């Protein structure tokens, strides 16, 4: 299978690498992709073809040329349109749960998992098969002829 990967890699070599031409345009894309087009259904300013989006892209372009930083441009947009324009919601009291919720869920999930596994071990360790159980198990084992048995 190493050969398989070699093939893939040589295919990749055949593809030309190509960097985006203009760093300012790359910055523009980066900013615009995280701003919401306010008149569209649910599209970023980078994606939308609405007049507002075209206009805002132009404004961002001008501000980049004027030497403003990304965060200054974002602040400007928020001042004009509110937090709604940001696809990456700012960390505030109202969004604490949003930002830390997934982490809480994960900790909670792993905690439950650990507790369950621990409890299970002790519950199963206490259980010893009685003579009756053993006999029944033997009888059942005798009956089993599972044709599709899996390893």
């Amino acid at each position, binding site marked *: 299978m190493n050969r398989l990967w070699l093939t893939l890699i040589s295919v990749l070599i055949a593809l030309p*690498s190509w960097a985006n031409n203009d760093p300012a345009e790359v910055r523009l894309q980066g900013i615009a992709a995280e701003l919401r087009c306010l008149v569209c259904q649910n599209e970023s300013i980078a994606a939308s073809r609405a007049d507002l989006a075209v206009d805002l892209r132009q404004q961002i372009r001008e501000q980049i040329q004027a030497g403003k930083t990304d965060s200054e441009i974002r602040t400007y947009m928020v001042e004009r349109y509110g937090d709604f324009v940001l696809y990456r919601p700012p960390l505030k009291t109202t969004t604490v749960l949003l930002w830390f919720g997934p982490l809480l869920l*994960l900790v909670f999930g792993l905690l439950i998992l650990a507790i369950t596994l621990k409890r299970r071990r002790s519950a199963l360790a206490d259980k010893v098969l009685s003579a009756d159980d053993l006999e029944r198990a033997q009888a059942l084992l005798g009956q089993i002829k599972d*044709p599709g048995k899996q390893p």
Partner: protein
Amino acid sequence: MIPEIGHFALILTLFVALAQGGITLAGAARGNATWIGFARPAARAQFSLVAISFVLLMWSFIVKDFSVSYVAVNSNSQLPWFYRMAAVWGGHEGSLLLWLLMQTGWAYAVSLFSRQLPDVMVARVLGVLGLVTAGFLLFVLLTSNPFERLVPAPMEGMDLNPLLQDVGLIFHPPLLYMGYVGFSVVFAFAIAALLAGQLDSAWARWSRPWATAAWLFLTLGIALGSWWAYYELGWGGWWFWDPVENSSFVPWLVGTALIHSLAVTEKRASFKNWTVLLAISTFALSLLGAFLVRSGVLTSVHAFATDPRRGVFLLMLFAVVVGSSLLLFAIRAPKVGLGGRFELFSRESLLLVNNVLLAVAAGAVLLGTLYPLFIDALGMGKISVGPPYFNLVFVPLMVPALLLIAVGPVANWKRAKLRDVLKQLNLPLFVAVVAGVGVPFLYGRWSALVALGIALAAWIATAVVMGIFKRMRATRSGLLAQPRSWMGMHIAHLGMAVFVVGVTLVMGYETEQDIRMAPGQTVTAAGYELTFRGVRSELGANYAAQVGDIVLSRDGRQLRLMHPEKRNYFFSEMPMTEVAIDANGLRHLYVALGEPLADGAWSVRVHYKPFIDWIWIGCILMALGGLLAISDRRYRLKRREKRTAVIAQEAKA
């Protein structure tokens, strides 16, 4: 007259469904064989009745009966016939009728493919499905009747939303709904098992093919939706973390956890409670998804408030389904045994961790989707939660899950030895590191995320290929002789690796240019030259198009002509973009026309999308894996054996 018959058939179905729910569940509880025997014919009757009503609605579309309000709103006399047929599920009311068709269809399938099951069990399953069907029928009949008449009838329809006039519409909703609704079968099995107090390996074995079937339809449905959005919306994105997408993705995540958990319950009789809970949640989340999409709550909380009937009804249905099943679960769960024992490091434990990760990921996506709605409803302002949030939260949760894909299949059930497992993962690790470091270098731009993604994909793919070779050598048999469910697992995992390659390379190395092009002008993208020749007008069946002519060439050698379009549909104000794509399996060149500018120039978008096809090929492989798993002879042998046993018994009697 025809629409009224359709309407009447739906009303009849409601009574059959209610009767089925009541009679068969009561029969199963009392052990009354006659009542139990009602389950299968009732399922058949419901399916036939809904099919009649569905066909009649389609007929109204075909004959352009604009006196039916739904037909008038969603079609038009100039709409081609195949779109008129697909327009049946192009709007709210009709898509619910499609939902019902699938719901009763699944129930009918259960009645057909359940000969190996005890009749009492079948009765319980079909009874629960009958009640679910009744709930949806009430919803359709009370709030969303597709057969409502318009008086006076308009001369002409308003036309189908142009976004929907595409092959995507013909296949995407049916596949997606097959998935959503399919999980109701697994749900019904879980409820039936809870009712009977019989949660065991047999129950897991019965539910498994149904869960896998629903999952594979959902996978295909989501993938097709993604592909459709990619080429129809015209800006080159394949996943938007849009609430509508999320509401199908959350059930998929939980459903993926479910099919893994079912495997443990079948093989080792463990995690029974957890599996039941997942079966209930998957269906509940499908319902929640339907509520989110259908209530209008997503566009705005206020849109919901203006016509709350539909939303409130769905919310009530959701509350009843979830409330009653959780209550039943709470009563029965403590009596369920623990099942087979296993050590802390074993395949069971690894699958549990996978389940936790998938469930948390689903919870996180749900949180991000619902959060802005809650904030808005509570009057705390309007916020947007978009791709930056979801990528940041989702990707870290998926990295360990992807790592585990390679580990799980090489770990033993009950007790695995860390040293053995590590030994088997030596080669995957090596390949992962080499590929992870190598690929970004070959692309000429280092990116840690690309390295990580490629390494993960290589890790999974190598482990899959190794696993298959090892087993073939151990059993001394060919690829085709291996158990299909086992092959299915590996194919699906391989699909995941392919998917990860696609996502990683697209996100890492895609480029986009949004430029002004005058006739004769050339732009280069990824070593290709695209020369704009100009735009001409063309007339379609129900639209006028501006068709661009762009020559694609490389090193001066002309490769092909590309024709991106801009369409104006006669009966709708919205202009539509039809993109032109040149694909070769390893990359897309994606060209979309923007707006006309002065002097015959146009704004044009040119994207270079490396390996984007792999995203959907990966999904298809996953679905293919599911299909293989369902076709495993294990499920069929049981049936044949049982049938011969029954025949032998009858012969004796």
